[in-house]
């Protein structure tokens, strides 16, 4: 979904290439070994011994198969399922050569690998990730003699050499849902989902339907918004257990954390995509296992017969591509097994339709777009840049086919300007200039590309351009709420704030926070703008200065505060986060974080673009529209009266009875 381009990195690669040239030149005569092409992520290639005798039962033509997949080959989930399947095919067909590039969560890396394999003459290239569709569509056209397969998807991209493969994962989900309902004593079942798309959504819907066939069962579903956030998935599992769940399930590679939570709390787990028994040998009841080899055999047979694609394949319970694998270490009651067997039989003979009582509305997908982000710090800075990257990923997940490009780390404005212009030039539909410092550059560039939509944040100013939207965060609102809470929690009556430069949403946050705290009574709020968005060492010393001045509660805004949170942790001082959830930096001392959900305004901006309006409007996220969310840290025991006060403050801001005092 993402591709990263950094100006620094570009130079780095030039340097690396030069070094490689030098190394090659120095290698001289000995450099006779074939060059190894390093594809992004981990690349491994295995080739069976050529002299292997042919297998007795009509072996298929030996093939060269390449897999490109987003997570690790041993993720016990999505990527492992295809790797296992290809290995089965290779074992059945001696001589088959298999190459794997895994870990390509960055779509551009995946695209490079897919193209590389096609170029190297692989017979079948598997693009295993719904996010790879856009890239594959381009590449497949360039290699009409190579067979590609794309999953999970039902769309062959209109290409005669692309097959699509999908999993009817709702079927196994339904079967396991039926079992879960029988096994649950509390009759509360928790589901940890990634993003509501693809086979994960099918699984969750099927599971919930199966469980709710039994009266009195409650199924709580939590889509955490990420395929990879293991910590968040574990927290979601914790939340389910706290809500009374005694059976859990979940889909996608981030559930490993949730299975650990199930194990720690003696709660049952149902797996999907791969057999997850090894993660909790006593508590995994069963796993729905994907056997992609079923469709791979068909795809390969079709290739041998001369048809390179254009067909969609599906694994399901009937064709054996989905299998329910029980954990022998778990004593499954006979009753549950009988129900499961009956459900499987019913699905296969067509008498049961796992998605029949769909209770989750299918959201109307938006037109697929190409979105580019240019932002000043790292994509995972736990602050400003991460907030927009997360939001665009949510949009991309909601709208399969959306192509996302990211240039992060452009703290030098000229670099950002070059990237913004580059994306506009490449025809991106929406270019997000995510940094108040980019306004001057954007004003010039936007005029040169009147047909491209730009959005600039954080700002309330559309630069007088009809194709520029502005987006802003009313961060004073969350700041005010947290200021009120901070004033309740401080013992010393002194609160410290570490700010970057007195502008934009950082200033709003600081103003709101100070006003909230001061309105609670006799509290001193010391504010220190360090004069930099990136100086981690200075931010941490500013936090030290606050503590030396008696502060026992701290907060701060922008990406350099990671150092200050460390100081809070070392000195046992409370911390309030903003922009992104900062709990992971100091799990015992972060009280809560104001999280930006830019997807709320991005949806509006994109809807307006689809309706033909490229800009000229200013958007804002706030507590009322759900674009700002206060996420408390479950690991910090906030007193009940303070929680009530925070809730009342949030309501007061939403209904207008409280003014944050920021301007």
């Amino acid at each position, binding site marked *: 979904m993402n591709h*990263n381009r*950094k100006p*620094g*990195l570009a*130079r*780095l690669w030039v*340097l690396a290439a030069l070094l490689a040239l030098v190394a090659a030149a120095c290698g001289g005569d000995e450099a006779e070994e074939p060059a190894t092409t390093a594809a992004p992520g981990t690349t491994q290639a295995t080739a069976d011994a050529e002299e292997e005798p042919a297998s007795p039962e009509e072996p298929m033509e030996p093939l060269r198969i390449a897999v490109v997949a987003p997570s690790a080959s041993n993720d016990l989930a999505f990527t492992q399922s295809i790797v296992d399947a290809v290995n089965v095919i290779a074992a059945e067909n001696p001589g088959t050569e298999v190459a794997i590039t895994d870990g390509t969560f960055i779509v551009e890396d995946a695209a490079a690998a897919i193209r590389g394999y096609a170029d190297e003459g692989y017979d079948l290239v598997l693009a295993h990730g719904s996010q790879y569709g856009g890239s594959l569509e381009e590449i497949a056209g360039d290699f009409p003699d190579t067979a590609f397969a794309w999953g999970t998807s039902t769309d062959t991209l209109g290409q005669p050499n692309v097959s699509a493969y999908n999993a009817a994962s709702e079927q196994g989900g339904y079967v396991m849902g039926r079992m879960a309902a029988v096994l649950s004593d509390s009759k509360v079942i928790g589901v940890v989902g990634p993003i509501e798309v693809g086979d994960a959504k099918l699984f969750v819907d099927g599971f919930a339907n199966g469980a709710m066939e039994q009266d009195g069962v409650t199924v709580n579903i939590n889509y955490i918004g990420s395929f990879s956030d293991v910590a968040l998935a574990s927290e979601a599992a914790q939340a389910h257990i706290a809500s009374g769940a005694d059976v859990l399930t979940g889909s996608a590679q981030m559930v490993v954390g949730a299975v650990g939570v199930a194990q720690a709390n003696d709660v049952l787990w149902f797996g999907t995509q791969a057999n997850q028994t090894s993660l909790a040998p006593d508590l995994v009841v069963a796993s729905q296992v994907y056997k992609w080899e079923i469709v791979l055999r068909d795809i390969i047979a079709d290739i041998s017969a001369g048809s390179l694609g254009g067909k969609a394949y599906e694994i399901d319970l009937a064709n054996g591509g989905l299998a329910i694998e029980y954990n022998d270490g778990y004593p499954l009651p006979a009753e549950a097994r009988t129900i499961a067997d009956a459900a499987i039989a019913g699905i296969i003979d067509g008498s049961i339709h796992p998605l029949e009582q769909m209770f989750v509305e299918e959201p109307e997908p938006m037109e697929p777009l190409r979105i580019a982000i240019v932002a000043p*710090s*790292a*994509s*995972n*800075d*736990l602050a400003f840049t991460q907030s927009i990257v997360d939001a665009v990923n949510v949009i991309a997940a909601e709208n399969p086919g959306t192509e996302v490009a990211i240039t992060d*780390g452009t*703290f030098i404005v000229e670099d950002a300007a070059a990237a913004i212009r580059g994306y506009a030039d490449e025809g991106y539909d929406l270019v997000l200039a995510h940094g108040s410092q980019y306004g001057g550059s954007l004003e010039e560039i936007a005029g040169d590309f009147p047909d491209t939509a730009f959005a600039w944040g954080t700002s309330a100013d559309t630069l007088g351009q009809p194709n520029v939207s502005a987006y802003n965060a009313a961060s004073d609102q969350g700041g005010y709420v947290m200021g009120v809470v901070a004033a309740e929690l401080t013992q010393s009556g002194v609160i*410290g704030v570490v*700010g970057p*430069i*007195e502008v934009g949403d950082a200033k709003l946050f600081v103003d709101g926070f100070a006003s909230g705290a001061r309105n609670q009574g006799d509290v001193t709020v*010391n*504010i*220190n*703008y*360090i*004069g*930099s968005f*990136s*100086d*981690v*060492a*200075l931010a*941490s*010393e*500013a936090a*030290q*200065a*606050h*503590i*030396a*001045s008696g502060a026992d509660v701290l907060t701060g805004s922008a*990406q*350099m505060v*990671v*150092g200050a*949170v*460390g100081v809070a*942790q*070392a000195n046992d001082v409370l911390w309030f986060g903003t922009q992104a959830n900062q709990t*992971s*930096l*100091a799990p015992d001392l972060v009280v809560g974080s104001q999280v930006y959900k830019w997807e709320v305004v991005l949806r509006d901006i994109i809807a307006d673009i689809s309706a033909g309006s490229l800009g000229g409007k200013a958007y804002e996220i706030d507590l009322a529209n759900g674009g700002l969310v206060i996420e408390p840290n479950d690991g910090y025991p906030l007193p009940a009266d303070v929680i009530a006060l925070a809730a009342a403050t949030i309501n007061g801001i939403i209904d207008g009875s409280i003014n944050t005092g920021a301007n």
Partner: protein
Amino acid sequence: MADIFTSAVIVATLSSGIRLAVPLLLASVGEAFGQRSGVLNLGVDGIMLLGAFGGYYTTLKTQSPWMGLAAGLAIGMALGLLSSVISVSLLAEQGISGIGVYLFGLGMSDLLFQRLVGTPLPVKSFPKVPIPGLSEIPVLGDLFFNHSLPIYLAFLAVPVSTLIINRTRFGMNIRAVGENPEAADSQGVSVVKVRYAAVTIGGLMAGAAGAVLAVGLGIFQQNLTNAQGFIAIALVYFGAWRPLGVMAGALVYGMVSAVVLLLKTRGIIPLGASDLAAMIPAIITVLALVFAARRFRAPTALTKPFMRGG
């Protein structure tokens, strides 16, 4: 206003100044070795960044800040060697090649961080080592004798470096090849070897500076050094290529930064002047050292590649 003069606040502020000074001190003392031998290494910041990432990542994996420091030293030494190859053997234009090393460190440290760690995770920092007896002296004990080991070592590096440069044969050779490499060469001193050694020491100390910074903070982030490597190079000039002068510069810079932070924290510098105040450390350090260092001149052969007979 009066309560900023309590001993607790003064100690906290001065300690803060010392912590801010230490990475600069390590990097600039190391750079002074290279410059005294005639080699300007503008890649200090890149080496610091890779040392910082190496130190952080090793600490994350081994749970030992000391292993982290060792990793920083090793990475610094390797990059110091690489810089020597580029500047001394390949006779590259020193300004440009140093920028190359800087960009390599900036990009590579971020790439490795993104690939190997991703979301920042805190790591264990160096423990404080109070010096028995001395650390109990009121005010001064806390200020000077209650720090982590790398901070003591950084300050110990100043007299040791002064001794090496001024009182040993190796130091004399460094000075000789920095002033007149042809003359040193004619006396049988290997200019190449001496410059390799001096630049590698510089790399080693830059790597240490990065590791001390990252592990001291307990966190890593893209461009963590925030150009401290360049400030360190400036401090070498303003500190007149002498470890003591360099230390004075680093301390002035650190102390002024800490005092400005305190004044902002207490609202004595008004919010509106915050951004302006952020420039004060650089301005005061430059002014102080310009006046102090006027009578010294740069090593004559600084930035000039040496080629026998050339």
